[in-house]
């Protein structure tokens, strides 16, 4: 089963929405809301779009704002969906 991690999250966001060099998604940043890391709702929509294509999953719009609000929340949400898809 494939899993999703912070490194992959950062890689996707670097390529699609841009990430400043001093922003990491681990450690202190893991639970910081994306908004406070400088990412707006468009950035999260684009992130969801990229993940949907890469993993062939559907992410409802409300999940983007409610369940993927920080790096840890986003990773956990995507992994939960991957697990659900396998089960």
């Amino acid at each position: 089963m494939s899993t999703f991690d912070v490194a992959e999250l950062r890689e996707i966001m670097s390529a699609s929405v841009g990430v400043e060099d001093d922003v990491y998604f681990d450690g202190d940043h893991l639970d910081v809301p994306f908004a406070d890391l400088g990412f707006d709702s468009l950035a999260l929509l684009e992130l969801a779009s990229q993940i949907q294509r890469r993993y062939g999953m559907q992410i409802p719009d409300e999940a983007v704002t409610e369940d993927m609000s920080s790096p840890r929340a986003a990773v956990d949400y995507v992994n939960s969906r991957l697990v659900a898809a396998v089960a």
Partner: protein
Amino acid sequence: MNTSTAGAAAVITGMGVIAPTGVGTEEHWQAVLAGKTGIGRITRFDPSGYPVRLAGEVAGFTAKGQVPARLVPQTDRWTHLALAAADAAVADSAVDLASLPEYEMAVVTASSSGGTEFGQHEMERLYQNGPSWVGAYQSIAWFYAATTGQVSIRHGMRGPCGVVCTEQAGGLDAVGQARRLLRGQSRLVVTGGTDSSLCPYGLVAQLANGHLSSAEDADRAYLPFDVEAAGYVPGEGGAILVAERPGPDTQGRAYGRVLGYAAGFDQSARTGRRPVLAGTIRRALDDARCVPDDIDVVFADAAADPHLDRVEAEALAEVFGTHAVPVTAPKTLTGRLYGGGAALDVATALLALRDGVVPHTVGPTRLRSDCPLDLVRDAPRERPLRTALVVARGYGGFTSAMVLGRGDRPAGDI
């Protein structure tokens, strides 16, 4: 003539130039004085299948490192150029943005094409892969106000922002609007403009106006007022300017003053109405409280179309007399930059005023007999300069004129 700073509602205290002639104000200015062209064969895509092969590209600019990493994939190249130029302009102005209330700072830029290269890329994804492949940032990256918005957000300028879309006249209209805001509540306006539409989609859209040069020889491709004038070369880049309300704070920092401005609009040639250019220039002079003899140099629109060249030459002769004022068009080194073109002309004119030198026009060798101009050619002409008139016309009838006065910034080393 109005010579006091107090009479001007706007002084230009900072500039950032990113143009085919150079990245950075002084690099551009030195290239202009040396007559070094930025025009060459298009490298951004293979132009061999297109009727236009030459352009003024901005070489030596990469967004990475010049533009916040987050904004690079979110915005078009035209916005990248403006963000970097705005950073340079703000730094150059030496203004302390933190000391100004955020609602008393505004951004007004000119744009002509919007984000065509970004848009083309997303259109390719749409047609090749499907709707879900179109990036979320297409929603904001392509449209004309994107640059103004991104500069506003980056610098925390929350005053009355806007964008003007008047093709090549846009740079003057943006500065004109900035001056209007400075007469109101605004104390600082980031203005000027850039454009970058050198992709197949962008170029094809430009071809429709029928005025582009299909020449292959860069030195003979853009020849305004010349008997061989056969269209212009497109280019990218422009200039971003910091305009401020003059006061004790701006002393010693002003490149120049916006003394007068007017805009007009030509009707279709089919109507037989006279072109509005001469009247527009007169209104700009009146606005500046200048008479024609007060103008020391004219930066021409220089369309390099036989009809448009004659209209401009006749307008200048009507207002100033034949051969009565030095005229120049450094834009033959860059091509026409659309939303960035007149902004760059304002920057170049301000540098000319600062240093007391009229840059020459490279290219034209034999002027048309119906263009009785003192076109400065062969070498820059050094002379004390107090005022400059900048003329700009945009495709479709846009016509603008601006009178600039010398500022109190010390001259550069030339």
